[in-house]
Each structure stands twice: as C-alpha cells, then as structure tokens.
C-alpha cells in the first residue's frame, strides 16, 4: 500500500514539475515583456537607464537557465515573483484574492452538485416518459449556454427587469446569489450527464435484474444498487471539475466585477503580467493534481474491489 502511495506521489510531483517548466518556458522565456510594457509608458517619464536598473532588479537579464533555477527555487519556497502591474509580490495578490474565489467556488460546487443530483435522479424516477425525456435533455442545454451570457441574462432579468437584486452595492449574500448560479449551471451539466450515463449503465447490470427478481421495487433498486455504483465513477472527474470551477470563476468574476483569483487572472492577461499568470497556472495544476491524488487514494475506501487489489500489490 505505501509503495502505491509513494509511486502515485512521485507521479504527481513529476506532473507538477513539468507543468512548471512548460509554463515557465512559454510565459517567462518567450517575448511579451511586461517590464517594457509597463515602464515604457511615457507618462511615467523613465529614461533608458532607469528601465535598465529596473530590469536588473527584476532579474530579467541573466541567462535563461539561471533565471529558470532561480524561479524554480523561489516557487518551492512560496515566492512567486512580483506582479508587475500591482507592484506587490504575486503571493500576496494570490492570498488576498483566494478567500473570495474559494467562497464563490465552493458555493458554486455545492449548488452544481445539488442540481446535478436532482436532474439525474428526477430524470430516472419521474413518472412520465415525456417528463423524463425533458429532464434528460437539460444538461445538453446547460452545456450550450455561454457562461458570461448567462451571468448577463441573470443580471438583466433579476436586477433590471424584476429588480429583485440590487446592482449597486448589494448585500454580501445578495451579491453572491447570481454569481453562484452563473458558476453552478455550466458545472452541473457534465456532472448530470455523467450521472445519467452511469445510472443507465448500472441499470442494465445483471444484479439489477436479480434484485428485481427478488421483488424489489424500481425505487429500492435505484437507491440500494444503482445509486452507489453510479456515484462512484463520478469521483474520477473531480479534478476536471475543479478546473472548470476555476475557469468559471474567471468569467463569473469578470462579468459581475468581483474581486478574486478570476478577476486577477483576467487583469493579468490584459496587461501581460506573466508572473501572475504562471503562478495561477502552477497553482491550479497543483490543485488539480492534489484533488486527483486524493481521489485515487480515497477510491478504495468506497470501492471494495480496489481494496483487495491494492492489498495484493503491497
């Protein structure tokens, strides 16, 4: 067992290291020089010497491999460099923006999961075929809606038409309602689709027929046999969902003008602030890898078949 964990951990670290290197090569080593963009602005009135001094301060003129090792070392110690636009350490920016995004994302995830479960189980148990069909097609509709447009439509309808939610200085909770819905809808779609497919697949298994032959009702079969076998595989997309959440946060925060990692990312792209982007990329890759690692290690707890297999491996 410990050998399995170690090898999984090694793999995770390898992926992270490659992610760092690739993003470094793409974002730091190639053109798109944020220093020049920012300081060549005539309004600042900096002369060439002053710019050169700044460049040295930011360490952009040493050989590539030195910069690479230097940056890698910094990343490992939690220093992600300076945000050129904000003129503060990237780590500070990330930390300052993290809580808002974490709150938005976790509320979004909760709502998305609830939505997906509701759609999947209602679409399986609903009494009429036409109703089941209608519910089953909801995810396909949800994945086809642009997230940014959904946010705008919600503002248009609930803030401007119905005037239920104030646009100017809404309360803390009031201000979160529309963003959370905007974030949750597109995430619930793939989740519901996978759930529906798994329920379908589990329903054709032999043990379902056997349970029916024991005299179990369709509802009993769904809860006792299908549900667990259908829910388990959805764990494997947890990592992907995390990425979707982050991407959704970028757009949601932009549309609603909220502060957070998403807003930070959007601004950094606009001003080519590469250290911030790289930090966000590496941060999200790390989170993805960690989520997947956790799922892999936890899976045997829920699935008895793997418990045995791992035991044999160790």
């Amino acid at each position: 067992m410990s050998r399995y964990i170690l090898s999984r951990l090694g793999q995770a670290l390898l992926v992270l290291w490659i992610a760092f290197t690739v993003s470094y090569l793409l974002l730091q080593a190639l053109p798109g020089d944020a220093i020049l963009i920012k300081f060549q602005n005539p309004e600042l009135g900096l002369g060439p010497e002053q710019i050169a001094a700044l460049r040295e301060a930011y360490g952009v003129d040493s050989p590539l491999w030195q910069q690479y090792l230097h940056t890698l070392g910094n990343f490992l110690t939690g220093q992600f460099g300076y945000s050129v636009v904000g003129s503060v350490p990237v780590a500070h920016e990330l930390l300052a923006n993290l809580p808002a995004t974490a709150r938005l994302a976790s509320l979004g995830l909760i709502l998305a999961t609830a939505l997906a479960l509701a759609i999947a189980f209602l679409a399986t148990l609903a009494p009429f075929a036409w109703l089941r069909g209608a519910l089953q097609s909801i995810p396909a509709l949800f994945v086809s809606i642009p997230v940014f447009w959904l946010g705008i439509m919600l503002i248009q309808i609930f803030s401007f038409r119905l005037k239920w939610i104030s646009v100017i200085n809404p309360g803390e909770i009031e201000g979160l309602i529309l963003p959370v819905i905007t974030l949750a809808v597109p995430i619930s779609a793939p989740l519901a689709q996978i759930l529906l497919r798994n329920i379908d697949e589990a329903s054709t298994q032999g043990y379902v027929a056997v349970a029916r032959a024991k005299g179990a009702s369709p509802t009993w079969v769904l809860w006792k046999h299908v549900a667990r076998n259908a829910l388990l595989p959805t764990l494997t997309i947890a990592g992907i969902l995390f990425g979707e959440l982050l991407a959704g946060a970028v757009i949601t925060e932009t549309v609603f003008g909220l502060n957070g990692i998403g807003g930070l990312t959007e601004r950094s792209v606009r001003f080519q602030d590469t250290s911030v982007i790289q930090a966000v990329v590496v941060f999200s890759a790390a989170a993805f890898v960690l989520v997947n690692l956790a799922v892999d290690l936890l899976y045997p707890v829920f699935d008895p078949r793997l418990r045995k297999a791992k035991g044999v491996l160790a």
Partner: protein
Amino acid sequence: MTTPLLSVENLSVAYREGDHTARVTHEVSFAIAPGEVVALVGESGSGKTTTAQAVIGLLPENGRIETGAIRLNGEDISRWSGKRLDVIRGRQISLIPQDPTSSLNPVRTVGAQVGEILRIHGERDRSLIEARVIELLGRVGLSDPELRARQYPHELSGGMKQRVLIATAIALKPQLIIADEPTSALDVTVQRRILDLIDELRRENGTAVLLVTHDLGVAADRADRIVVLQGGRIQETGETASLLASPRSPYARRLLADAPSLSARTFRAAPAPGEDAIIVDNLVHEYQSSGREPFRAVDSVSFTVRAGTTHAIVGESGSGKTTTVRDIVGFGRPTAGAIRIAGTDISALKGEALRKFRQTIQLVYQNPFSSLDPRQTVFGIVEEPLINFGERDAAVRAQKVNALLERVGLPEALRKRRPRALSGGQRQRVAIARALILDPKVLVLDEAVSALDVTVQAQILKLLDELQKERGLTYLFVSHDLAVVRQISDTVSVLHNGQQVEAGSVEDVFLRPQSDYTRELIDAIPGKRSHALA
C-alpha cells in the same frame, strides 16, 4: 386433474423498436405441475429467455405481452402491475441468473445481498436475517458461511457466486424457480455440481423449476419434461424420455442428432503411422510479475501430433490451454521447452522468419466477431493473407479467394458484406477461409465452435472434417467441451492447473481414464441419463 402451478397459454411477446414491433414468441403454451422440472430448450433467438422473462414479469422496457395468459395457481398474472408482481417475485417465483459474476452487486457484501430478499419481503429483525443468511449460505455448500457473508463478490469464484445466487433464490421457499442458463458461464465440473445442488434443493422443498437452456444434454439429465422452441414457436413438448427416444418434430430430431453429448459414441479409428506435424516437448511458460514468484501457467507439457490427424487440448479455465496454444502459433514465447511445427522450431523464429513461417500454421479464434476486422468485407478479409505474401496479380487472388469461399459454403452474395451483416456460423466460415487461403499444414482451432449454436456447430464440425480429408490438414483443437472432443479428435491431452494430467488416444482417455481429474471431467459431460434411457 389438479391445477398446474404455472400455466402459460398462447403467449405472444413483441418488442417495440422505433415505430414498429417484432414478435419474438408466437402462441407459446406449456404448464408446470408443482415440484416438476420443465426445460425450455432452444438455440439463440428461439424466444426461450423472453418466455422466461415474461413469466417473472421482467421483460425489457420495450417488450410487451400481446396475447395470452400466464396463470400462477390459476390466476392470470400477465396483466398485473409492477407493484403487485413485486409481492410474488422472490416469494413465489424466484430466479437463478445466467452469469453469476455480473449478477451480484460489486460494492455490497454477499450477506447483504442474500439478506435483501428477506428485507424486501418484510423481515425487519436484523439478527434473524443474519442467522438465516448464514444458514442459507451453509445450506448451498459454502464453507465458512460467516466469513462468506462478510465478503464481497469479487473475493468469490464463479461457482461460489452461483451458490450465493441459489441461496438467494431458495430463501423464501418459492413454488417456482426460473433457472436461466444457470451454468453456461461455468466450467464443466462446476456446472455439474451446481446442477446437482439445484436438484437436491428442489427435491427438499418440493419446488418446481423452469430450466432455460441451450444444452439438450443438460435438459435430458435434469428435466421431467422438455419444451423445444425454435424461432419463438414450440416445436415439440413431451416427457423427457419419450421425446429423446422418439422425437416427432424434424427440428427436435435435428437438435438431438447435432448435440455432441447425445449423439452416438463412436471414436475415430486409430491414426495411421506417419510423420509428426507438431512436437511439443517439455513446454514451460512462466509469467513474470514484479516482486512475486513467477506464475507457472504451463508446466512441462509434451505431446506429438501425427500429420493429418486431430489432437485436442482439453481443460477448464486456468488450465493453461490458451497459453500453450499461443506459444504453438508463435504469439507467445515459451520459458523453456521446444515446439516443432512441420520440422521447424517455431520458438526460435523471430521477425521476418516468423512472419514467413505463418504460412505453415494458422489460428482460428473462438469469437468470430472480434477476430474479423469490422471494416473489411468478407472478400477483403480472405484476400489479405495473399497480399501479405506477395501475390501481386489481383485476378489470381480473386480466383483463389472465390474458390475457397465457395468451398467453405459462403454464397457469392455475402462476399461484399461486412462481418456485422453475417451470422455467427457464417463469420466462423470466413475465419476458416482466411486461415486456409495460405494452404497451411496445421490449423489451430481455439474453442472455434464453442460460441455457436449446436446445429451450426455441427455444420462447422462437418466442414472441418471434410477439409481435413481433402487437404490432409493437421488440427490442434482446443476445447472445454469433452463431448465435441470425443466426436472429432484422434488424440487428446488433458490439462489441469498447467499440467498435463493425461494424454493418449481419445478412446483410451475416454474409456480408460487414468487420472481422477479426467474421470471427473468425463462424468460431468451432460446427457448421461439419455444414454441410460436409450
């Protein structure tokens, strides 16, 4: 006359697909008396499973009973709602399914799944359920029932899983058990023990059994009466003994003639002396796995096959027969030992030399669907080996391919079709033609007829026999089915756990088996009772 326990009257079932419906059973009628065993026998597409599904009220969603009645103790249940049927399912009618592996929920314990039937039918007392589950698991012959109850299905073998399912089926002492091919996914020796168990339990409780099977031999051994179905219609119904002794319908007669376990037991004459086409000497094959002892799948197996004869390799799953065959055709590399095919040591060949040598030995797979490329036409499949070996003239290729396809009995109209548009028997004919187009000396048949219906199987076996005589072919015939082996081979090796426990002429091995294992295998061949009756 007393009311029968179950009486099926003029049952017609149809499946709806899109906007049209297809009838799969036509006015099927039969009855089962209390405690009686009735076998529904038929090949694939005969409607036997559909009939059984209708009886227990578990037709697929698009299936519908169009006409007829299903009377349980005189009361028609064919129009009952799901809710009403839930009360009798499990309590009065229960099911033993075909494939034990997919029939148990992988994430719940065995005990929970046996206990479930008690819980569904209203038992609330946990300790009572637990005690009853352990009693049932012990009753079906599982050792250490307390442990079994806590285990998950993947920790049990196929035979043990089927015992668990039987324990579930008998838990509420139903009046009728539907056994749907209860043993076709199991090895022959396990198959017999499971059928014995069902027999014993049914006698004990006076339960009636509706046995659905494709194997007339199994039906002959176990049933009081047999219902023969073909294309959704009943061909014949009768007492087992009289139906076997004097079948009236032509279809039942054919089925009886084609069933290897029931046909007359004549052995092939001893082969004339000649040169050896295959020599396997002390073959050993180990599978390496990191950090563990290598697993010895084949352990010093030796046999020789005279040119122009058929040698059978017999064994159950895990016996090492597949590994042996893969080494012989050059897809696997033996760990030790020698394999000479027509004088050449194939285990020493590599790369281009091995590719060239494939003209000498060819393989026909068990599953004719997965061994044919779904995107090629029949003609293309058979033509390909000729292209591989440099036949450039398309006209020559076409002439050879067409002649061979003609010989294996594939009409011209099928040659542009793809495998999906062919029946199982036709597909296997294509696979045989592909193997023979290069004029090999040795043909290896890996369970090549096991997936086919008996009547089709008989046709393919006949074709193989003719081809052997015409072309002087040497066959290596791998099978788990001793009845087929008895019918077509000259010599046989019996493998068990990687070792050869017996080898010799078929007559010697079948009439004078030396090892206990061989004896057990031979005893497990169904159809014994019909011979006793005859």
